[in-house]
């Protein structure tokens, strides 16, 4: 019995330790986002890195998702002569779910990994210790600008992804499925509610926080040279992706629970 319980207990204690460390890290990171001094130059640089440079990958994901969604919906709905529901399905799916989730996952792969690698390298090359000896708080200088940029830029990215995704569905519906352009746009606008877009943007802000937080957390705690940095990068992407899917369910429940 004891040989079974020992590893179980050790795993449970390790889980509690990691959870506690993550909660404290999150609390410290968020508190430094709202307490001066701020570093506007660093925040702007991170906004460009996270927002502007992620636009191509998020845009491409959104347009192809919208196009596939229109095609797939058509093949299903045509059996029941319900083709007129396609604009509704495209716009609601994109704004509520696919826009924020796919943009979040793409940014997790691009930005979460980059943040973990950069901060992890700073950790193993003593640059974070150097910051401390220069009387500069690493949470304020490294982590808060990334969190602020992540939480503000992801909603903007998702808003753009929503527009591009819906446009992708429009292109396929008009030029491939033979829809009338004006009735497609009218249907889209009729079915779209403010809450659909708002819920997607709230999700995006949460996902932005999760992606940057996981990148910073795993990078900050990386150990053991290049191998440790590699492990931190993988962990950042995997944990951010899983947390995005979990948070997506929770936020959806909060907005659309009956």
């Amino acid at each position, binding site marked *: 019995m004891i040989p079974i319980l020992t590893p179980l207990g050790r795993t449970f204690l390790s889980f509690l330790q990691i959870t506690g460390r993550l909660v404290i890290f999150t609390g410290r990171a968020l508190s430094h986002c709202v307490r001066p001094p701020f*570093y506007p130059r660093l925040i702007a640089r991170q906004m460009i890195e996270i927002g502007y440079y992620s636009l191509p990958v998020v845009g491409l994901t959104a347009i192809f998702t919208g196009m596939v969604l229109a095609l797939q919906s058509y093949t299903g709905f045509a059996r029941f002569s319900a083709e007129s529901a396609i604009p509704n399905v495209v716009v609601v799916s994109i704004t509520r779910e696919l826009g924020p989730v796919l943009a979040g996952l793409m940014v997790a792969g691009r930005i979460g990994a980059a943040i973990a690698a*950069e901060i992890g*390298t*700073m950790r193993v*090359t*003593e*640059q974070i*210790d*150097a910051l*401390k*000896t*220069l*009387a*500069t*708080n690493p949470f304020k*200088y490294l982590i808060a600008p990334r969190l602020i940029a992540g939480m503000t830029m992801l909603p903007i990215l998702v808003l753009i992804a929503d527009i591009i995704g819906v446009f992708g569905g429009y292109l396929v519906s008009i030029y491939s499925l033979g829809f009338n352009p004006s009735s497609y746009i009218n249907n889209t606008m009729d079915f779209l509610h403010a809450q659909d877009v708002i819920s997607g943007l709230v999700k995006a802000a949460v996902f932005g926080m999760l992606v940057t937080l996981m990148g910073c957390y795993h990078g900050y705690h990386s150990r053991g040279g290049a191998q440790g940095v590699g492990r931190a990068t993988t962990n950042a992407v995997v944990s951010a992706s899983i947390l995005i899917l979990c948070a997506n369910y929770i936020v959806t429940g909060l907005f659309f629970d009956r």
Partner: protein
Amino acid sequence: MSSTAIEIRDLHISFGSNHVLRGVNLDVPSGSSLVVIGGSGSGKSVLLKCILGILQPDSGTIHINGEEITGLYGRHLDNFRTRFGMLFQGSALFDSLPVWENVAFYPLHNQGMSRKKAHELSLRYLANVGLDADIAEFYPAELSGGMRKRVGLARAIATEPDIIFFDEPTTGLDPIMGDMIDQLIRKCIIEYGFTGLTITHDMASVRRISDEVALLYEGRIVWKGATDKLDHPDNPYVEQFVTGHTEGPIQVQF
């Protein structure tokens, strides 16, 4: 001001079952240069990190100019750190910043200095360590090891500290560049009046930069004396370390 810049009493720190420092006692007089020598893994870097507040000791006290810093954190600790300068073993320059921003990091981010003034200031400190203004716009990855060390030294003295720390300052450098770094360290101590604490096991460097030497072995200072006593230390640990013999009281693990 106290005549002792750094006063360490009964300092202990462990990592799990590894008891690294086991009661370190050490005094560094103001305006002097003390070098701590010791084998790899003897706890030299840990001792330095405890003084800098990067690691918190399990017990014991550290006084800087008569004021206790153990247990300080946040802004209080940062206020003390403004009196420190540190040259890291690998220089620890910020990869994302050009050389001039590395050198002027402290005045730029903590004293609210304008970028124009900070740039001028960094050129002055670069000149002090024998570097041309041409490299100010370079990034650390574009510099040689010796240049990186000198930029690191310029960054350390740009904080105008009371105490300056050097972690293996000549490691990885050729003998000529090592000698140059040692001369710059000596210049810092004599010209600027800094108190210096260095950790190294480069004995040529020890003789060039130190007024006093302390040997750290198994988490304790087992000998401390003037540099000129290194060759006749009357201590078997120091004798073995200086001569580099494998036989003696210092246990060598193969």
